[in-house]
């Protein structure tokens, strides 16, 4: 809404008096008007900084927070002001919007923070004024790109393991794209690089004249003709390797059409085709000339290095992005060449024995002069020719110098972007590790607390009190919450170590596994429901472990079935040893187990992202899995919820 609309509306309405005498129908009654006529000063307190403004100012934009009744939620009756616990520096810009109708973007603030403030106050980002709009958009785009890069790096990247059940094709493609994921891929990468180098060097060496010791002919032969078999063998080997690589990539590519159209595959094709064409073409003299030219294409193998070198890729990308500047350069150069060649030709026409035999012949002179090469094979002899020649060389410098800075700055920008991306990827791992640590920190604190016997219901007294006293109120409440969750789901939180042990134990199968898995759990003594938990925990262990070990869901369901149907009691559990035996509870759990087992079978196979989610480390992943199993556990839930949770 434009700035002044609210101010001018009364005026526009008043001006409607001009329609009155013309109206053929009676005009509608005026809308109800609010009683308060006067303008009052409102105080808005943002984190201690008090802003005062007229109420009318805020009412100008009724569809924002401050202009609507939403601000009443923030009204503090004691102090008679509206209190917002937000950034006061940003609020200044928001309030100025009401006053001036233009929303300005602060230059020194993070654009994301600004966006959040706007969202809070109900202002759409489109309200940013023209003066700041371009910068705002640029910064926002830059930020979005950076975040997208981060996400992409996470997804495509090297961090999490391959999802379970990926086909050979996917694994192969992944190995090709990220050579450092596995040693085999790395070996392949270096081998192909080596063969590219060998092939290129062979091409080069082929043409060097080597003095044949056997033959004492005066004519020197290039090495290629002296050792044709050796070179042919080397060429064959390289081409075989390249062909193999190309076919493998073609097989592994997720989208073959796209792969066929990509630049790298075209380079590959161009690199290997000449060999096959050479094989097919019979070796007679007519075609041998063409055959020889085909060999020229072998030099394109050097472009295969761009898979191995990032700098080369950056250069290619820069040239592509500077296409318009390059085009301009080419065009202006062509224009200048034609002009100067014409002039030089006519200037030198008079002299005999001149090199400037035609205008195209003069092109060569012009190019050599404009690029300041000056070979000297063609020089003007007339005075006019010399004058024009000097003008030609001066203008050449200018024309070439103009687009170059643009190309250079483009290259620099892209190069630095790439550097930044690499650095970020390297730091990403550290960052993720730290986040993981923080997440697991809370769980670990809880587990520690449990281990120290904090869950002891019957207060056995002072020893516990000592170790639990050091927790803050927040921690206490948080732990209580986690504890409630455990009780609700009849499952317990555990840490990675015990869990992977449980996994390893389970794969051995049988009762022994159960005992070891259970005994390694840090269950506190005296927890009543923990007797049913071991079995459930084991199933949870199986489920989670299976995903990390990338076993398919089908087998997991089988295991579930087995676990469910195994009705043998678990006397070996430490908890049950300590606790009083609760057969009733066992039985309850059994029935739930049974029902749950049957229900869990028809669930459709999980998608890979689901399992990769599970495999993500930290309390988050575990919590979700426990929640999943929790719905299996509680008897009052309907089967549908089970299915939903398993998905």
């Amino acid at each position, binding site marked *: 809404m434009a700035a*002044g609309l609210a101010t001018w509306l009364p005026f526009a309405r*008043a001006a*409607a008096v001009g329609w*009155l*005498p*013309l109206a053929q129908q*009676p005009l509608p009654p005026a809308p109800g008007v609010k009683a308060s006529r006067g303008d009052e000063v409102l105080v808005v307190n943002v984190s201690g900084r008090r802003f005062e403004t007229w109420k009318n100012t805020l009412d100008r934009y009724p569809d924002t927070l401050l202009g609507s009744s939403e601000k009443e939620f923030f009204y503090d009756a004691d102090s008679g002001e509206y209190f917002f616990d937000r950034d006061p520096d940003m609020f200044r810009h928001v309030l100025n919007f009401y*006053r001036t109708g233009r929303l300005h973007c602060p230059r020194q603030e993070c654009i994301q923070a600004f966006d959040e403030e706007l969202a809070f106050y109900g202002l759409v980002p489109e309200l940013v004024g023209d003066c700041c709009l371009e910068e705002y958009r640029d910064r926002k785009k830059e930020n979005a790109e950076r975040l997208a890069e981060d996400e992409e790096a996470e997804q495509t990247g090297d961090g999490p393991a391959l999802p379970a059940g990926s086909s050979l094709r996917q694994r192969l493609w992944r190995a090709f794209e990220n050579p450092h994921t596995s040693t085999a891929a790395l070996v392949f990468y270096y081998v192909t690089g080596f063969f590219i180098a060998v092939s290129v060097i062979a091409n080069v060496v082929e043409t060097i004249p080597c003095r044949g010791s056997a033959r004492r002919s005066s004519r020197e032969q290039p090495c290629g003709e002296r050792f044709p078999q050796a070179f042919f063998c080397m060429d064959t080997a390289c081409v075989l390797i390249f062909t193999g690589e190309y076919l493998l990539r073609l097989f592994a590519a997720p989208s073959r059409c796209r792969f066929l159209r990509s630049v790298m595959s075209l380079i590959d094709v161009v690199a290997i085709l000449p060999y096959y064409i050479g094989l097919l073409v019979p070796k007679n003299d007519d075609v041998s000339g063409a055959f020889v030219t085909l060999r020229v294409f072998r030099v394109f193998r050097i472009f295969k290095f761009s898979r191995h070198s990032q700098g080369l890729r950056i250069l290619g990308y820069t040239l592509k992005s500077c296409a318009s500047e390059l085009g301009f350069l080419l065009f202006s150069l062509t224009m200048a060449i034609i002009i100067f060649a014409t002039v030089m030709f006519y200037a030198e026409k008079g002299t005999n024995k001149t090199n400037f035999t035609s205008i195209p012949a003069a092109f060569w002179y012009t190019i050599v002069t404009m690029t300041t090469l000056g070979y000297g094979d063609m020089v003007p002899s007339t005075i006019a020719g010399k004058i024009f020649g000097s003008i030609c060389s001066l203008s050449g410098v200018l024309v070439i110098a103009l687009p170059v800075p643009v190309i250079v700055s483009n290259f620099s920008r892209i190069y630095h972007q790439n550097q930044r991306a690499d650095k970020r990827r390297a730091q990403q791992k550290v960052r993720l590790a730290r986040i993981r640590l923080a997440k697991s920190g809370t769980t670990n604190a809880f587990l520690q607390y449990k281990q120290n016997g904090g869950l002891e219901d019957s207060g056995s007294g002072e020893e516990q009190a000592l170790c639990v006293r050091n927790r803050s109120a927040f921690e206490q409440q948080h732990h209580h919450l986690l504890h409630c969750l455990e009780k609700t789901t009849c499952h317990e939180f555990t840490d990675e170590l015990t869990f992977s042990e449980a996994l390893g134990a389970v794969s051995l199968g049988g009762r022994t596994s159960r005992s070891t898995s259970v005994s390694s759990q840090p269950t506190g003594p005296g927890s009543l429901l923990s007797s049913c938990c071991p079995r459930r925990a084991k199933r949870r262990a199986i489920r989670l472990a299976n995903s990390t070990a990338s076993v398919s869901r089908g087998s997991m369901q089988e295991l579930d079935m087995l676990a469910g149907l195994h009705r043998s009691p678990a006397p070996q559990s430490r908890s049950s040893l300590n606790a009083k035996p609760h057969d009733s509870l066992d039985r309850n759990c059994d029935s739930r187990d049974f029902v749950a087992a049957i229900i869990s079978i028809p669930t459709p196979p999980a998608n890979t992202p689901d399992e990769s989610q599970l495999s993500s480390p930290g309390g988050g992943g575990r919590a979700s899995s426990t929640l999943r199993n929790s719905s299996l556990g509680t008897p009052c839930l309907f089967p549908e919820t089970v299915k939903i949770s398993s998905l």
Partner: protein
Amino acid sequence: MRGQGRKESLSDSRDLDGSYDQLTDSVEDEFELSTVCHRPEGLEQLQEQTKFTRKELQVLYRGFKNECPSGIVNEENFKQIYSQFFPQGDSSTYATFLFNAFDTNHDGSVSFEDFVAGLSVILRGTVDDRLNWAFNLYDLNKDGCITKEEMLDIMKSIYDMMGKYTYPALREEAPREHVESFFQKMDRNKDGVVTIEEFIESCQKDENIMRSMQLFDNVI
């Protein structure tokens, strides 16, 4: 307005014809505009001249000053502001007529005094005052009587504000017919023009008009 002209010429200069120098011209323009500044008379005087209370005048001036920091509204601004209320149609002609009605001293700009004087008549004046004001609006050449041509212009401008998409669809003859009916009602002596007395008399006899006059009592 100069500002508009500048915007257009800025876009032209993108053709690199080199004939317009953005830097020097715009600086001069800026300089000239900012030196124009109009201050209204004091509050007391305005209070005497108009029927608004002190507080109302304060509120009005604050809004006015916010929109027009230079203190005056010129025709282009006025048209722009008014057009925002009628996005579907073209309100520029009517806005011109309105502008002329407010610009009582005909100097091409509406100052705060003009603004408030006009509003005072419309919102706080007697029925006769309002009718007088309306007559003044219709009388484009301010000669004391409304001819059919003047009325037709006014009518067309009002219908223009409706825009294209109306129900029922707007016909070409609609303004003319409306003018005819207006004259039939207002022109007592059928001499083809409506004088102020005829106008006021006829309006006072019309109940609809009288009733709708009360619409504007609470606008401010």
